[in-house]
């Protein structure tokens, strides 16, 4: 088991106005699995993903990633954990516009002062079909290409888990298919565990396992 969430709760506000974004979610993800979490907007799926990625703290509950309880980590330690163990792919790509594609991809490695494993990066880039774009800036790329760069960046550190937040939300259906396919196949190829959230049933079908979330609970 690579990821285990136990009885996660996230409440906003108090009393009458209290919103239960997550209300006791437990989830296990196994190594190499591709899990999709499906839910409508407001179902708490984004909150769940943010918690799993250590971007946000739960009101209660525990998250264990790669045998480490991340609720114990704070501030920069959490940041460094994220850098080494978690790869993110966001709906809005979130590439650094001022860095070239290649620099974007290896940025998490450089932040960690690692030597870049050129062969590995080379093969990731080749599988994602962006080998020819490494020397350009993200702004010059199509949405699909940008998202592929984001996937490459997420894979660069060989993270324990790759978290994708509506990765095709900003893409047309045809490009979405490409990106999802690549997410799936590169995940298979590099034996990567993937957790993806989406509101789209069809996209969720790409995964090995589908988890449904409604009103902050898994159904």
């Amino acid at each position, binding site marked *: 088991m690579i990821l285990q969430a136990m009885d996660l709760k996230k409440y906003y506000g108090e009393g009458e106005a209290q919103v239960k974004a997550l209300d006791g979610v437990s989830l296990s993800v196994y190594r190499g699995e591709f899990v999709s979490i499906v839910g409508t907007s407001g179902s708490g799926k984004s909150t769940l993903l943010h918690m799993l990625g250590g971007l946000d703290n739960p009101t209660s509950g525990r998250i264990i990633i790669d045998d480490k309880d991340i609720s114990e980590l704070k501030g920069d330690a959490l940041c460094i954990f994220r850098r080494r163990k*978690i790869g993110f792919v966001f709906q809005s790509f979130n590439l650094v516009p001022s860095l070239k594609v290649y620099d974007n991809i290896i940025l998490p490695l450089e932040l*960690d002062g690692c030597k870049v494993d050129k062969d590995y990066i080379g093969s990731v880039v080749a599988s994602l079909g962006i080998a020819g774009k490494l020397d350009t800036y993200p702004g010059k790329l199509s949405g699909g290409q940008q998202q592929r760069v984001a996937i490459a960046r997420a894979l660069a550190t060989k993270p324990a888990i790759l978290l994708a937040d509506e990765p095709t939300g900003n893409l047309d259906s045809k490009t979405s298919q490409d990106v999802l396919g690549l997410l799936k196949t590169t995940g298979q190829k590099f034996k990567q565990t993937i957790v993806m959230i989406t509101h789209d049933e069809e996209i969720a079908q790409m995964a090995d396992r589908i988890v449904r979330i409604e009103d902050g609970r898994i159904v």
Partner: protein
Amino acid sequence: MLNVNNKKAIRKISLSGITTNIKKYVILIFAVALTSLLFTALFTIGGSTVKEMQLSTMRQVGGSSHAGLKYLTQKEYDMVKDDPAIKDISYRITVGDVTNKELNKLRTEVNYSEDENAKGGFCYPEEGSMPKKENEIVTSDLVLQKLGVPVEVGSKVKLSINIGGQEITDDFIVSGYYTGDVINASQMLLVSKEFQEKYAPIKTTILPETAYNDYVGWIMADFNFGNSFGLEKKIDGLIKRTGIREDVDYGINWAYVGGSFDAETMVLVGIMLFTIFLAGYLIIYNIFYINVISDIREYGLLKTIGTTTKQLKKVVKKRARIVSVIGIPLGILPGIFVGMCLLPMISNQMNSANVGKGQVHVNILTILVSAAFTYATVIFSANRPCKKAGSVSPIEALRTRENEDAGRKSKKGRVVVLSLSLALVILNSVFSMAKGFSMDKYIEQMIVSDYSVQNATLDNPGIASTDKILDGVTTDFISELKERPEVQDVGNVYIFDDYHLMDDESWKKIQERILSNERFLSEINEMYTGVNGIPTADEYLDMRNSEKELDGATYGISKMIFDKLEVVKTADGSDKLDWDKFNSGNYVLTTCCKDYDDDICIPYFEPGEVIQVGSRDEKYVTYDTAYGMSGEEFEIPNYDNEPTKEYEVYAVVKIPYAIRFQSFGEFQCDYILPEDEFLNLNGDRNPMRTLVDVKDDQEVEFEKWIDNYTSSINPDMKYNSKNTVLEEYKSFSDMLKVVGFTLSFILGIIGLLNFANTMISSIIVRARELAVLEAVGMTGKQQKIKLMKEGLRYFVWTSLFSIVVSILLNITAIKAFMNGMAMFSWQFTITPVLICLPIIGVLVALIPLLVYARMCRVSVVDRLRVE
């Protein structure tokens, strides 16, 4: 701990963020360059002024070497000359003095000098060469002029030289000459080695064992150390190390001993530094902060992929450094240029010797210090933006951040309001000072007649008061002046400036009125602290009481001057004085203690009291021997044996600044006698000053004559005219205006830049919001009005703030400052703020429109799409 090395990543992010967003950073670089410009200009002016002062001190002292050892034998010289601490050393050998009558007032030393020593002593021949043959000499053009010899190589000159009491008179040939300096204590006449060896061989016995009064044949060594810090210590070390006798005479060049700036200047420089720092801070901080805010998504994104708070701070700091590296050099050259333009105006106002004023000295230090100050400003300004970037929450950065931005508005707004107001407040202050600078008051202070003629040294603040010539108006001049048809009225001022010995009765009054006055006691307590060899206040008072002396001058004045005195107190209470009564020879006028302070006047003597005035007739003078700072011996006249005469105090008066000797002793108890009585009492003497009033329509001719007279007939004399004072006034108020308005202008630009930047970023940040508004039907016109209103909010705050602060400052600090200075008369002013505000108002309304127009080039749909 061994940390992973991520410098490369930080550098890459920092650099690429700038290169791809160059537009955003250009404005920041511009701001840094502006700050660098201001600092460089200030340091160019400051540095050049210090350097000029140093140079002029050097010229006064007569050398540029760090220090010197005096009265050495060859053996002693050899002991020190190879010391490793000494960078270079050279010497001259004392021979004697020139005793030609023409040089009575131009002390001229005779020396043999090594080439290097002559260069360091500013007496290396500019024309011709150093003396080689026995009858060859080098001296200054001033000496040659005095001697009436043509200033050229090969001139023959007959000289009498006193060599240790023995006088030699011979013909010499000028082998070279240099340009002499009036402010130099003594002129040099260099002789050949041959001459020196013949008449003044180097001493073989050390000074303490040599017969007294023999200053011939000594080696005077001048040398430089590696640097000029802590010269006293260095020279002590040198003496100990080399084993030369402990009581050797040494001198340290004053030019290298700091403290050439007075407290007032330091405060001024401090204020300028702070203002520039503040201005730089305001703009750099604001732009930087806005840059960080508009890049906040990027920072948040970096954080989600694992960039730590520390690393983000490093990124921002690194960007600050990159911006500095580009911006600072850009500002340095223009800064030097601005400094060069302002320097002449400013240095004319400085109380320094008038040598090489306005000369620009730029060295690497100026540039480094300016760069360092700018850099410090940038780094300081980047501090909060750094924290901001570091504290970004990754979640928030992922969301749209419209609500988050609302909180920032007030803070950004404060910076804008503050920087705009600062410019206005400074402008207003400068304006009220320039306006309040009263010409009449100033001129009244500076001159009481059309013309004032005196020796050139008299009113030159760069010359020590003991070196000033107090009887510089020659009889020749006075007789020629009488011939001038343009002259309407002439008045002379005579002076002896030393001390007054009191009889017991008078001294008792002084003790009562002055020495036991609380104000003076507190002043004395402050000054006589009993440390560093200074006596304690009690010791000082004891000394005074035993000596019964107060420093002060005896003036002699003509009727014209008499009429210009300010009456403080008379026996009958009237403020009119009668010349004939005064001129009878039985009366004296006395002054107030500390009468140069405006607000207090405590008379030494009351009208009607009788005092003794001592004669200064040369017949009765005896001399005491004293030793100067560098061990040289000089004589102090002692008038204790002079006869005294009794006078009745007619009135207590104040002598206008323009008439008096502009140097003050501790008490400055002055007695004033009528001209004839003065000469009667003291014997013949030339006036210190002669004041001339000229017939109204004949000023041009007179000016022509007097200008010619003081430049070619007697260059030792100098005249001030109302016109020169007018010019001085003009240049002073010009400086005030130029410096003040330049500063206000730059600050104004900074304020507007801040405003523009704030508006731009606020519009960019809300581009989507505006697009949404447009989509739901808000017209362009409505949007523009919305933006203009926002700009006007800044304007309203700025108006309120600047008006209130300007008024407060005007009626407090500026009023106090101007009332404290004689040449100002304070008036309430707020006009500049009121005039500038509408202009700013227009700009403030216009800038948002321009920015909006720019934004509109992108279609609504595209703007809507941007998250």
